[in-house]
């Protein structure tokens, strides 16, 4: 059977935790690079955050908003916000400019509107998404993370909450780092995109952990924690792939259509932030959150005992092909007797000290 067929049938046995030893290094490096990037090249905030200038000019030539936008794009002001008023004026907002670009902007505006340059007024304008709004948003975020951590601790356990938040920060930092690197403008829409990523990342991690917990109940007296995590990941693999594909398809088409086909610049950065974030969010729930959890849990006394017992049993009957290596993870994952929810057989042996669970 080809890999694809096995994936389709849900019969893969990838050693995710083992693979993640390498990917975690890459992840950590990316996070560090992103942080450095953010320090070296701070995010390019849009006029909604920083304020800028507003140009008001009477629309003598009665030009269309699309025409105005494209002539602004020609002088490097593709990100400008253009509005027409009911009284026949054009309003153009851009970031604060140096004298030369400001002159250029005034000339372009006058030219496209068909009026003399001295009839164009230019004024400073403050932020609409100012310090107060930003403060409120950050406060909301902090409270939110706290409550989510409490929720995961309550439904699962606190180590899972920590792992989920680690994956979350991983996603946000890398996405932000990418924005800093590319020099894209951060608009309020981008902030929304980041919040979306946050939701996706958590949702994805919760689904994976839910499976892990379910499998712990079924498999805890025969397998090591790492093996249970691996099995769970293989079981949710197709869900993860399908969910990210179905989420990425609309965002991808927004990115493609929005930026290339119609020249709608407003949507491009937004779609890009979403695209990168969702992709990283899926990656991190498999390659960051779960491996971190596995490595951490393997150190718990119960699971150290479980590991020893599993090894002993396997060396006894010689049926498994476990190769112990220096790290905690076995390099080959045992072929699980696929044990679905509540199927009998898994708990035939007398259970060891039961973990607290719901």
């Amino acid at each position: 059977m080809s890999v694809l067929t096995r994936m389709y049938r849900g019969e893969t046995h990838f050693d995710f935790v083992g693979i993640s030893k390498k990917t975690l290094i890459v992840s950590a490096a990316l996070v560090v690079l992103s942080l450095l990037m953010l320090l070296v090249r701070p995010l390019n905030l849009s006029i909604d955050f920083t304020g800028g200038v507003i140009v008001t000019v009477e629309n003598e030539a009665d030009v269309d908003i699309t025409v105005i936008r494209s002539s602004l794009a020609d002088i490097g002001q593709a990100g400008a916000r253009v509005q027409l008023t009911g009284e026949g004026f054009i309003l153009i907002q851009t970031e604060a400019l140096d004298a030369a670009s400001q002159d250029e902007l005034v000339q372009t505006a006058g030219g496209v509107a068909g009026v003399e340059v001295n009839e164009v007024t230019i004024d400073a304008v403050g932020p609409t998404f100012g310090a107060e709004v930003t403060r409120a948003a950050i406060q909301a975020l902090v409270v939110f993370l706290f409550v989510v951590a409490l929720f995961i601790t309550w439904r699962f356990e606190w180590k899972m909450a920590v792992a989920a938040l680690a994956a979350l920060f991983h996603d946000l930092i890398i996405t932000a780092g990418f924005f800093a690197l590319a020099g894209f403008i951060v608009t309020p829409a981008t902030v929304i995109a980041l919040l979306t990523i946050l939701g996706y990342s958590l949702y994805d991690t919760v689904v994976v952990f839910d499976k892990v917990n379910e499998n712990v109940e079924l498999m805890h007296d025969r397998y090591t924690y790492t093996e249970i995590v691996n099995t769970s990941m293989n079981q949710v693999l197709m869900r993860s792939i399908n969910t990210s594909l179905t989420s990425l398809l609309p965002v991808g088409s927004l990115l493609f259509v929005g930026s290339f086909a119609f020249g709608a610049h407003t949507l491009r950065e937004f779609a890009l932030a979403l695209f990168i974030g969702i992709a990283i969010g899926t990656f991190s729930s498999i390659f960051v959150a779960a491996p971190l959890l596995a490595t951490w849990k393997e150190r718990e006394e119960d699971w150290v005992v479980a590991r020893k017992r599993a090894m002993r049993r396997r060396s006894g009957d010689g049926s498994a092909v476990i190769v112990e290596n220096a790290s905690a993870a076995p390099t080959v994952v045992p072929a699980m007797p696929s044990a679905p929810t509540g199927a009998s057989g898994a708990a035939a042996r007398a259970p060891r000290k039961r973990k607290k669970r719901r």
Partner: protein
Amino acid sequence: MNRKKALLTLLITLAIAWGSIGAMLLAGWAPKLGLDLQGGFAVVLVGPEGTDADTLDTAVEIMRRRIEELGSVQEPEISVQGERSIVVQLPGVDDRERALEAVGTTGEMSFRPVFGLVQVSPALTDPDGDHPENLDPVTGLSDPDDVHATIAYLPSEDGSFVYIVGPAFLTGADMKGGRAQFSGTGGLGGAGGWVVVPEFTDDGGEKFRLATGELAIYQVGSPQRRLAIVVDGVVGSAPEVAAGVSPDEGLDPNQVVITIGSSDNPQAESEDLAAILNYGALPTTFERERVESVSASLGADSLKAGLIAGLIGLALVMVYMIVYYRILGVVAMLGLTVFGSFLVGALILLGEFQGTTLTLAGVTGVVVSIGITLDSYIVYFERVKEESHAGRPLRPSIDHAYPGAFSTILKGDTVTFLAAILLWLLAVGPVKGFALTLGIATVVDVFVSYYYTRPGTWLVAHSALGDGGWFSVRGAMGKKSSQASTSVEPVEVTS
């Protein structure tokens, strides 16, 4: 689950979903679009000469809060422009006057003693008398009103009387806030009506007690026994201190209501006053320089591109889901219309009754929620597959997989719902719009999963499409032949 129950549940859900959205569309209702998508109007407010930057920033913040408190307008864009102007852009709402009122009025409030009550300003009847400064030459009324002036002439709400009032006992700064409520006896003449219940600071409460005590020494029925409640230089009401109040004790500040005088919309007025009490007076007065309509900032081109992209994306998703999950993919796509009907229906209702507008941020919430609801199907179908591959017969797998899948969906949705609630409560501006659609979507998702997906999938699996080859449920499980298992499939176990 049995056939009758499944069919009934499914039909009721479909009827509610499609019926309600159909009815709303027939009634000509549609979601109200926000400033960035549809445009709106802009008002330019100019402060007095020499207004400093801090004052402008404070004013912007108070205006933003007041508008959000109105609840009828979503996501205004407010910014300082030039030296001393503030530009407020609002979506094209119906009651623009009310919104303008909220941003434009200073909202300075004071409780003042009444010295006298006359029909016409004394400045007009007795031009040579001793009068306060700053009188309007035409009306003879104090303009602007200074709350600390020793004497002022102020009009009543309907303009039929002139109150001669003294310096303020206490002002808006002595109040923590207020809330509008309907009182059975709060209206004029003891009838029911809208009132505002003010909440005083500790200091303010004490000042209020002293003030009412001071007024209680006057005879019942005398104008001097009245307490004028002044908002922006107009006496909103001037209730008399009740008979029997001891001058030594005054009135309990916790038992005060401010009645709303004659008004076309007393509810709106009391809410506006409460908003003013909650967020304080503007630090300075602003002149309304001009009001003009503005076009959408996102632009029709962007909106069109976004819509086309959305449709293409949806088509791709549809193809993928149906190729991958066959008939179950069709179940999911039909479910998406149920989900969409509920979500859009909720947004329409909020638009109609709360004036909630849908901005780009809100639309993003919708796009994200499509991902969330599709995930619910995928979680369920993958579980069915898993059960089926573990050797369980097809139809029992369908039943058996649901509880676990629903539990996962519920947990995932709870996390997202929490996020939405918190963002809604704590954040302002576009983040709020996003949170709203996302929050509604998670609730709808859980509902649709339980009342549509479960019976829908069950029915499909028990129909000819359950077992019939490539496109069937069995086909979606990746099992080619149904010969071997159909013969041994046990009798259905109802759950």
